[in-house]
């Protein structure tokens, strides 16, 4: 059984069909790239999978269960985590609390424990703290755990978003332009990071990116969208030689280095 299977997914905004008959099958452990021109509908696909907007039609089967109609927090609890194209951190909370806010999902203690700071609270909080620090360590932000998230440099914010998503212990991680605004050097270290967390946490990754360096380097398989539809699909090599993709997206110069 595939981890994720999206079938005949459509989304209309008023008269505009932003996603049209989208389909995608992902096996456990894959890294798949989702690319396409601006406005192709990539982010919308993410929003549909995570339940932020309801699809017009179609189904999204995750571990054999249809996600359509579930509220976002339930989908997240089932193991689908994401980052956002325009960073959406909890800016005024500390770096540590950004991660811990999400951790609580697996960290249940009742209202009474919380109100009285009972033993179960203390125990669970200690676990949460340790876990959050571990995740910050992974993205190399441990030294800044007390700073407000909004005060971090841009690249660090992107990595904090990844740590926050990891706190959900997801099975599927959706990354929306994780390298945007990074210079090639930083992109390179991001590639390392994504590889590392994929192995360490046994993730399946679906990522959107315009920086071909990253996509071609990381992804085993690439799906190309244009005007809401899939126009090509295949290995990086296949895709980058596809004339449709060249014309619509990569350009004739196609510098993939």
């Amino acid at each position, binding site marked *: 059984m595939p981890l994720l299977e999206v079938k005949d997914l459509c989304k209309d905004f008023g008269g505009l069909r932003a996603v049209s008959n989208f389909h995608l099958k992902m096996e456990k452990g894959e890294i798949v790239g989702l690319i396409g021109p601006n406005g192709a509908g990539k*982010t919308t696909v993410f*929003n549909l999978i995570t339940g*932020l*907007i309801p699809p017009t039609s179609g189904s999204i089967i995750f571990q054999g269960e249809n996600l359509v109609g579930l509220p976002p927090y339930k989908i997240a609890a089932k193991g689908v985590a994401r980052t*956002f*194209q325009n960073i*959406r951190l909890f800016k005024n909370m500390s770096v540590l609390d950004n991660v811990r806010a999400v951790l609580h999902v697996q960290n249940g203690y009742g209202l009474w424990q919380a109100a009285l700071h009972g033993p179960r609270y203390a125990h669970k909080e200690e676990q949460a703290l340790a876990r959050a620090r571990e995740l910050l360590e992974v993205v190399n932000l441990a030294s800044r755990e007390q700073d407000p998230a909004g005060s971090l440099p841009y690249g660090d914010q992107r990595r904090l978003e990844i740590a926050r998503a990891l706190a959900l212990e997801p099975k599927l991680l959706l990354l929306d332009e994780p390298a945007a605004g990074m210079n090639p050097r930083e992109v390179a270290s991001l590639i390392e990071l994504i590889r590392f967390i994929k192995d360490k946490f046994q993730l399946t990754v679906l990522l959107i990116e315009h920086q071909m360096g990253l996509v071609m380097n990381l992804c085993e398989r690439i799906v190309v969208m244009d005007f809401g539809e899939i126009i090509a699909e295949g290995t990086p090599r296949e895709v980058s030689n596809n004339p449709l993709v060249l014309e619509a997206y990569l350009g004739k110069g196609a510098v993939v280095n």
Partner: protein
Amino acid sequence: MERLLEQIINGLQLGFVYALIALGYTMVYGIIKLINFAHGDVFMVGAFIGYFAYTFWGFSLFGAVLIAMVLCALLGILIERVAYRPLRYAPRIAALISALGVSLFLEYFSSLKFVFGPNFRVVQPPLKEIHWNLGGIPITNIQVIIVSVVILLLLVLQYLVYRTKIGTAMRAVSFDHDAARLMGINVDFIISFTFALGSALAAAGGVLYTLAYPQIYPFMGIMPGLKAFTAAVLGGIGIIPGAVLGSLIMGQVETLTAAYLTSQMRDAIAFLILIVVLLVRPSGILGRSDPEKV
């Protein structure tokens, strides 16, 4: 049947009076996203200035409206300068608290003996009320004036905001101050202008209000201000026709409740309807409720 018609007219009058205030409220909100709680109090100051102008300074009604508008525009600019501008980059709620402070200040300061004094004053506007009967429908000249002024203001404001250069600049400022600055827009000037305009509208509202309800006192702005703001929210705040629509609905609801249900429940029903409407249309009747794009 005839009574119903008369009640609807009553509701229209009340609605148009609310609209008079709501237009200024919604203008300011639309541009700076500030619930300017002091609006009702500028309205009060306008009513007082108008009263002094036609009772003691010998102005005509038109002259009184004009002078109240000019003085209140200056007052608006002053308030913006002192109480809101320093908070331009602070959280929005800070400006709201400042607005509450200004509102209290205007109310309490005006009730000092050497300012307006605490009295309720009966005023005699320089305009005799004339009653007409249009096929069984009773209408007064004051109603006609108020309705015409509201419609005129609606058109003028729509034109100003959507068809003129300064209006476009206002809309640009409402989106992002820095971006507007980079277009060469003097943001401080535009905001001052917006306040001046909003305050002038409040003043005009204040003077015309005394035609319909010939009594003034320093706390007179609170309730009409609140109702007008509610009406603006009902119609979709920041949207100029929405202010008028919301006001007309409020007017009808209040009047019909008082007339046919129970006068005790008038405010309760009006706000109940507001809540219900918001639950169905979370951004008001004409408000665009575009969900945040992720």
